[in-house]
């Protein structure tokens, strides 16, 4: 390689390495803020490395697994209450609205709302998180996985 090309290559690569380093450091500094949600464990004990905890009244997102058997739905309207868990900690979510089709017990979901008590979130939005595994129904059944979308009566929907 002739010296001029070598010089240009060094300049381009060192500029790139510099920018990469800057962006890497910025992302590292911001890494806690880029997280889309808190997990129930992080709400109780704080984020793993910074220890930041959400305060009461703060608007946050919580992500975790719906505790099996915890979903209580009002027969009259769309109000629903359920528990979210991860690493042994549990947060209760209250929500008034239509749940996404993928919502079910044991499913990962994200709730967005106000933390009104240390362990209670009043959600205005519930999103279902799904994992990267795809399989046909027959295989899922043989693995013991089953899924039923939440069902609503006409009266419940009309009231909303």
């Amino acid at each position, binding site marked *: 390689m002739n010296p001029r*090309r070598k010089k*240009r*290559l060094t300049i*381009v690569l060192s500029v*790139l390495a510099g*920018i*990469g380093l800057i*962006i890497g450091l910025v*992302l590292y500094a911001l*890494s806690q803020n*880029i*997280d*889309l*949600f808190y*997990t129930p464990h992080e709400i109780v004990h704080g984020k793993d490395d910074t220890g930041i905890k959400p305060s009461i009244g703060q608007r946050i997102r919580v*992500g975790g697994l719906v505790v099996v058997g915890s979903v209580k739905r009002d027969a009259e309207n769309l109000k629903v209450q359920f528990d979210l868990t991860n690493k042994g900690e549990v947060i209760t979510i209250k929500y008034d609205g239509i*749940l*996404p*089709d*993928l919502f079910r017990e044991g499913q990962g979901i*994200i709730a967005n709302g106000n933390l009104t008590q240390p362990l209670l979130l009043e959600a205005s*939005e*519930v*999103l*279902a*998180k*799904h*994992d*990267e*595994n*795809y*399989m*046909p*129904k*027959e*295989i*899922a*059944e043989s693995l013991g*996985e*089953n*899924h039923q979308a939440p069902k609503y009566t006409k009266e419940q929907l009309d009231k909303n």
Partner: protein
Amino acid sequence: MWKWLHPYANPEVSYHFTGKLIPWFSKLTFTLLFIGLIWALLFVPADYQQGNSFRIFYLHVPAAILSMSIYVGMAIAALSSLVWQIKLADASAAAMAPVGAIFTAIALITGAAWGKPTWGTWWIWDARLTSELILLFLYLGVIALHNAFEDKTLAGKAAGILALVGVVNIPIIKYSVEWWNTLHQGSTVSKLGAPSMSSSMYWPFVVCFIGFICFVTWVICIRFRSEILARNAMRPWVRDLVNQQETK
């Protein structure tokens, strides 16, 4: 070591070489996408959770992977143009940018259409979605710079610098789902180890994916050839080509 590559730096040689590739890639594209998409959209079993809405996977994932691959290709072209000052590398970067931008847009739009029935929202500002949107803006910036200067060498230099700087976004997109909590799920196929889908769903994806790769190569070849002609319009070999076309 690189001697075999040198003839292709000549526009005329590259023009004729890509001309020979085009019919092959067009045939492969039609065959593979015809088989792959019919297989994927009609015959693959529905997902146990998402039902039929998961079928958009066969469009969304190839588009998303290709949006990043085309960007890397464009950045390599930009690097070789800046360092070795190969004019054709600029032409190929200019040919790739709009194709990549379209695939980024397809990935974002199909992702939104998939997110609504499964997650419950069209859009969320999570790390994966946001960084993919930034990729679209990078593409648009590169396209704008290529067209902003009358002098194509200067335009190639400016666009090339932006393309190279933007390359840091690629690992951010790829690993966003591992580094941060996101609503977007992890990788199903583009990872080491076995894909997280059953083989009856995986093989149609492979066919569709190779089909889309051929499609992208085909379109980029066509755009590359027209870039070469536009940039060498005054050269005798282009004039000869035009005269030949006219006498036909």
